[in-house]
C-alpha cells in the first residue's frame, strides 16, 4: 500500500511509487540514506519534481528544505523533465581540448536548443557533463545512451537526425 501521504503530495499510486517506497523501507527510513533514495527516485521517475521531493521529505522525516538542498547540490539530480531524446556532450578536459565545444555549438545551432535545456517541443535535451571517463576516445557524445567516441559535429548531428526521423515514422 502506498503511503497515505503520497496522494496528498499529488503522486499517482502506481508501480513506481510502490518501488520507491519499498526502497525507502529497505533503508529503514534512515535519514542518511537520502542520496540513495534520490537516486532510486530519479531512476524510477526520470527526474525529481516538487511533489516527489516533498513526499520523500515526509517519509524520511526531513525538512523539505534539506531534501531540496541536497537534490540541487548534486549535478546528477535533474529537477526538470528531460526531453524525449537526450544528447550529452562530455566537457571533460580531454574532450574539451579535442573540440567538444564544437559539438555543443553544432547541436545548439541545428536544433535551436541551449545547453542544459530542452527544445520547445520537448523532443530533445542537450546536456553537457564533466567527464564520462572515456578520455582516450575524446571527444565523446552520448546520444540516447549510445556513446560516440572520437565524435565530429557531422557524426553527432547525423545520429540525432536519424533518431528524430525514426520517431516520426
Amino acid at each position, binding site marked *: 500500500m502506498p503511503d497515505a501521504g503520497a496522494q496528498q503530495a499529488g503522486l499517482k499510486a502506481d508501480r513506481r511509487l510502490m518501488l520507491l517506497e519499498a526502497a525507502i523501507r529497505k533503508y529503514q527510513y534512515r535519514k542518511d540514506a537520502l*542520496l540513495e533514495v534520490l*537516486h532510486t527516485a530519479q531512476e524510477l521517475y526520470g527526474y525529481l519534481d516538487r511533489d516527489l521531493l516533498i513526499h520523500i521529505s515526509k517519509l524520511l522525516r526531513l525538512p523539505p528544505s534539506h531534501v531540496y538542498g541536497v537534490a540541487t547540490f548534486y549535478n546528477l539530480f535533474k529537477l526538470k523533465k528531460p526531453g524525449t531524446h537526450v544528447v550529452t556532450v562530455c566537457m571533460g578536459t580531454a574532450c574539451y581540448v579535442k573540440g567538444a565545444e564544437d559539438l555543443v555549438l553544432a547541436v545548439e545551432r541545428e536544433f535551436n536548443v541551449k545547453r*542544459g535545456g530542452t527544445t520547445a517541443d520537448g523532443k530533445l535535451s542537450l546536456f*553537457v557533463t564533466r*567527464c564520462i*571517463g572515456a578520455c*582516450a576516445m575524446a571527444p565523446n557524445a552520448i546520444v540516447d545512451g549510445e556513446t560516440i567516441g572520437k565524435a565530429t559535429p557531422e557524426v553527432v548531428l547525423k545520429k540525432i537526425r536519424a533518431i528524430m526521423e525514426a520517431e516520426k515514422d
Partner: protein
Amino acid sequence: MKPDELRSLAQKEAEARKSYRYRINVCCSSGCMPFGALKVLSAFKDAVKEFGVEGECYVARTGCIGTCSIAPAVLIEPGDYLYQNVTPDRAKEIVKEHIVNGRPVKSMLYGNEAYFKKQLRIVLRNAGKIDPLRIEDYIAVGGYYALLKALTRMTPEGVIEEVALSGLKGRGGAGFLTGLKWRYVARATGSPKYVIANLDEGDPGVFANRTLAEADPHAIIEGMAIAAYAVGASKGYIYVRSEYPLAVETLKKAIEAARSMGLLGEKIFETAFSFDIELRLGAGAFVAGEETAILASIEGRRAMPRPRPPYPAQSGLWGKPTLINNVETLANIPVILLKGSEWFASIGAKNCTGTKCFSLTGKVNNPGLIEVPMGITLREVVFEIGGGVPPGRRFKAVQVGGPSGGFLPEQLLDLPIDYESLTKAGAIMGSGGIVVLDDTSCMVDTAKFFTEFCVDESCGKCVPCRVGLYKLYKILDGFTRGEGSLEDLQKVEELCEFIKEASLCGLGQTAPNPTLTTLRYFRDEYVAHILEKKCSAGKCFKNGGGVGGE
C-alpha cells in the same frame, strides 16, 4: 572460509588455468565497451566453439588492458599478444590463425612496445588479465592471501608498521603517509571506527580509479579489509561516482562474491575479525572527493567540507574515527604485505616510493591508462609512453593533477614525477591525470576553462572560493574577448594568492593553479591577448565564447 579452503581453491583454479593452452582476454572496460567489446567477446566465444578449440582456449571477459586508444583491445596469453581495434569478424580470424594455426596475426597486433617499456604494473597487476566478476580468478593469482597473512600472522600494529616502512603515500593527491594516517586512526578513541575507500574520481580527464575498480575490484576490497583490521574498524564504505555505472556494478558484484565466500562478514578466516562493506553512490559533485565533504555526502547531506581539525581520524563519519584512503592506495596494500615493505620501498624515487597510475589523455598519440614508477620524468611519459603529440603539431604544455593542476611547459619536462617536485613547479599529483596540450590550445582559454569548472563545482561555503573564483573567471573571460589591461594581470595574481591562502578546502586552495602556472610559463600569451588582441591558437575573440554550465 577457512584458510585451507583459500589455498585449495587457489590451487584448483591455477590448475584449471593451466589446462588451457591459450587465454583470450577481451577488455570490457568503459573504454572499450562503447566500441563493441561485448560483441567481440561473444564472437570469440562462438569462434572457439566453431573451430573446436574451446577445450584449449579460454575466453575471458576482463578489465582494462591499458591501451584505450585501440579499443576494443584483446590480449592473448601466453606471450601477451595485444590485438587492436578488434571486430567480431577479426575475432574469428584471430582464433583461426593464432589459436588453430599457431600464427599470430601480425597485421592486427598493436606494435607499440614503447608504450609498455617504461611502465611498471603493481596496482594494475591483474588488470586485463583476470575476470573481475570471478572472485576465483583473483584468488588464483594470490588474491586474499595478504588478508589471510595479516589476520593469522600479523598484529594490527605489525600491519601498520609494514605499511609505514614501505613509504606508501596517499594516492588521492595530497600524498600523506599512509602508515601514519592508519596509526592516527588506530590510536584514536571511539567506536565503531570506519574505513572509507574514496572512488569519487571527479576530475575531468581522469579515469584511473574507475578503471582499477572495473578491472580488479577485489584488490580494493582486500586492501580495505586489511586497513580495517589494522585500524580496528568493522564497517567500510566505498564512495563511488554514480557516473561510473560499470564500476558500480562490478564493485557491487565483487562485494557480494566476497561476502558469499566469507571473505567479508563475520569471523573472517575463523578469526575474531569481522568486516563488511557498503557501497555509496556520489551524485556528481567534484568537491565530494574532499575528505570532510565525502563524510557529509555519506551521511546524506550536501557535500560541503568543514574546517580541520578535527581530522576524520579523530572525528569522521557520525563523529567516529574514520580512515579515508583512495582506492589506488588501498590496492597497493595486499602487494606490500605479500612482497614486503623493503621490496616496495626499492621502487620509485627516494621519499616517494612505489608507482602511480595516470590517465594519459589530450593531444598525445597513445592515450590510455598507464602505471609508472615514481620519479619517472614527464618527458618519458609524454614522449616515450605517450608517443608525443600528433604529427605536424607542436607540444605546448602538460597538465598534471586534474582541473586544479598546473600547466608545465617544455622546459620543465625533465621534472621527475613525485609529490614535492610537482608541487614546487606549481602542479599537483592530484588523483592522476596527465593531459597533453599542443599548439592548437590557447593557454588563456584553457585557464578560463578550468576556472569555470571550479566556479561550477565550488560548494559555496567559503567566500574566497565562491566569490574569488567567479571574479577570476570574469577577468579571464574578459581577456578572451579583448577586454582587460596589463594591470589586470597583477590583479589576477593577487586574487589567485588570496584564493589559495584563504580557501577552506583543497578545491579552493588549488583552483588557481591553472591560472598561476599559465601566467608563470605562458605570460606572453596573456600579453598578446591584451595588447594585440591576438590568440595564437585561434580560439579566442569569437562571438560569445564561454563553456557554459550545466
